[in-house]
């Protein structure tokens, strides 16, 4: 069996009395889409935050390609190959869509300690960034400030940024939210092909998308993984039906 790209073991995180992550272990294997589902407030975003380093776990280990990254800062983890999108878009609002991606490309190329060459005349930055925007279908919006993009376009822009990082693993926190049925469908198709580039840990409430895409699903309730399995296994699981799926299954 292939080595997991990302491996969480026994992660615990409390906010005061609230245990938001309760001994979570899960992994992400090469080429797979692993969906993480669960009711609102289950701790899905909190888990993504801990993987990326925007929150620090109380205990447990996080490995990326075998390397323990649980103590590293956000920027270091990103450089090691974690590409994420946020549940609530997190962009540089004054910069155009293009410049948002260019920031990722410059980070990926290595140094940001270059003081003189204008980025807007740097073909190596612009060409690659435009290519990423094209992949998500935003090429016509390249010059629009991120703050003026629609909700759905911002989600696409976040994905373009994650793509630019040549990540080893993608962590996508509700990429379909607010996309509309057309957008969700297009994105589902896109994510289906994206898994060839790197495996995806997908947090999503859109069950049609999850069932269409996921190789495995983990169900998180009150911070605990109550089940992990294939789409069929999860659909049949009685505990999951009561806790979350209800009539979706």
């Amino acid at each position, binding site marked *: 069996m292939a080595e997991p790209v990302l491996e969480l073991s026994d992660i615990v995180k409390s906010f005061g009395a609230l245990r938001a992550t309760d001994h979570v272990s899960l992994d992400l294997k090469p080429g797979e889409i692993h969906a993480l589902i669960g009711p609102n407030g289950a701790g899905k975003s909190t888990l993504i935050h801990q993987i990326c*380093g925007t929150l620090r776990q109380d205990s447990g280990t996080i490995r990326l390609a075998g390397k323990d990254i649980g103590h590293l800062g956000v920027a270091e983890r990103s450089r090691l190959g974690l590409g994420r999108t946020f549940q609530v878009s997190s962009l540089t609002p*004054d910069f155009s869509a293009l410049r948002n991606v260019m920031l990722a490309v410059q980070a990926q190329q290595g140094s940001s300690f270059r003081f003189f060459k204008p980025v807007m005349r740097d073909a190596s930055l612009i060409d690659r960034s435009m290519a990423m925007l094209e992949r998500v279908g935003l090429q016509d919006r390249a010059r629009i400030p991120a703050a003026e993009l629609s909700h759905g376009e911002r989600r696409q822009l976040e994905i373009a940024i994650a793509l630019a990082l040549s990540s080893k693993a993608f962590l996508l926190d509700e990429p379909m939210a607010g996309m509309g049925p057309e957008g969700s469908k297009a994105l589902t198709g896109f994510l289906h092909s994206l898994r060839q580039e790197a495996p995806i840990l997908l947090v999503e409430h859109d069950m049609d998308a999850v069932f269409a895409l996921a190789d495995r699903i983990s169900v998180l309730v009150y911070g605990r993984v109550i089940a992990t399995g294939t789409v069929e296994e999860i659909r049949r699981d009685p505990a999951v039906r009561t806790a979350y799926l209800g009539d979706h299954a």
Partner: protein
Amino acid sequence: MLNRETLVNLILAALLLAVPLMANAFGQPFYVTLATRVAILALAATGLNLALGLGGLVSFGHAAFFGIGGYAAGILATHAFSGDPLLLGLSGTNQMPLIWLVAMLVAGLVGLLIGLISLRTSGVYFIMITLAFAQMVYYFAISWPAYGGEDGLSILVRNQFPGANTMKPVSFFLICYAVLIVALGLFVLIRGSRFGSALQAARQNEVRVATVGIAPYRIRLTAFAISAALTGLAGALFADLNRFVSPSMLSWHMSGELIVLIILGGTGRLFGPLAGAALFVIFEYVLGGLTERWQFFLGLILLGTVLFARGGLLGLLAGKARHG
């Protein structure tokens, strides 16, 4: 292709050059000195604009760098005059280029040290900790009798610049003006560079910058040190303008003044500091001639700017800033 902001900038730059040249032609050296003051304050604020405008780092301690630059000039000049060695057998100097280099190095280094600690905080804490460091430098200068303590330090003869008679007001103005233009050029380069992109992005959204793999702290620290060095350079020129350095250059009023200049002119705008410095010096001169309480009216104008013209003078003249 000339956009509106570029046009406004060119006009401002031309005005700052034309007014003192004309004043000089009409035998009015006082106005030349006023214009020199504008150029130097604009330079100091351009330094701060790098940290505050581009990086969003509201330093309330830039007087420390301004004063350190001033003292660098004063101390080097004093030793050059007396012939006493300064330290490690090195002597002083009255050559401006060398003085500027020392002023920038020392201010930049102190900026690095202050930034190293301050930049671990943000928001109000950052404002307070930069203020606290600047006050430490201020009290150090006051209690250090070797260089005048509270009374300050006079520079008997203005320092020299190769090929110019710096005692002529217009010559000294032209030197300051040229330095300002070079600094503005540097600002343009940095703003448009990879480093500048990361710095501006960190102002807008720190988490985003870290998420693409750039550690905001190092970017900000570097910006803070460059910012300090530029403000230190302005301090050295200011000392030569007044031929006097005193702890007042280091006081928190000075830090506040630099922030006010930037807000009046337009935060983060290339010519914001120049516009702000010109407004400030004109207010100081015109209102100061009418009433002792001119700072009260300056306060009103500042309030008006913050409430009704967030972009400052540049915002009014050239519209909203664009980021490409």
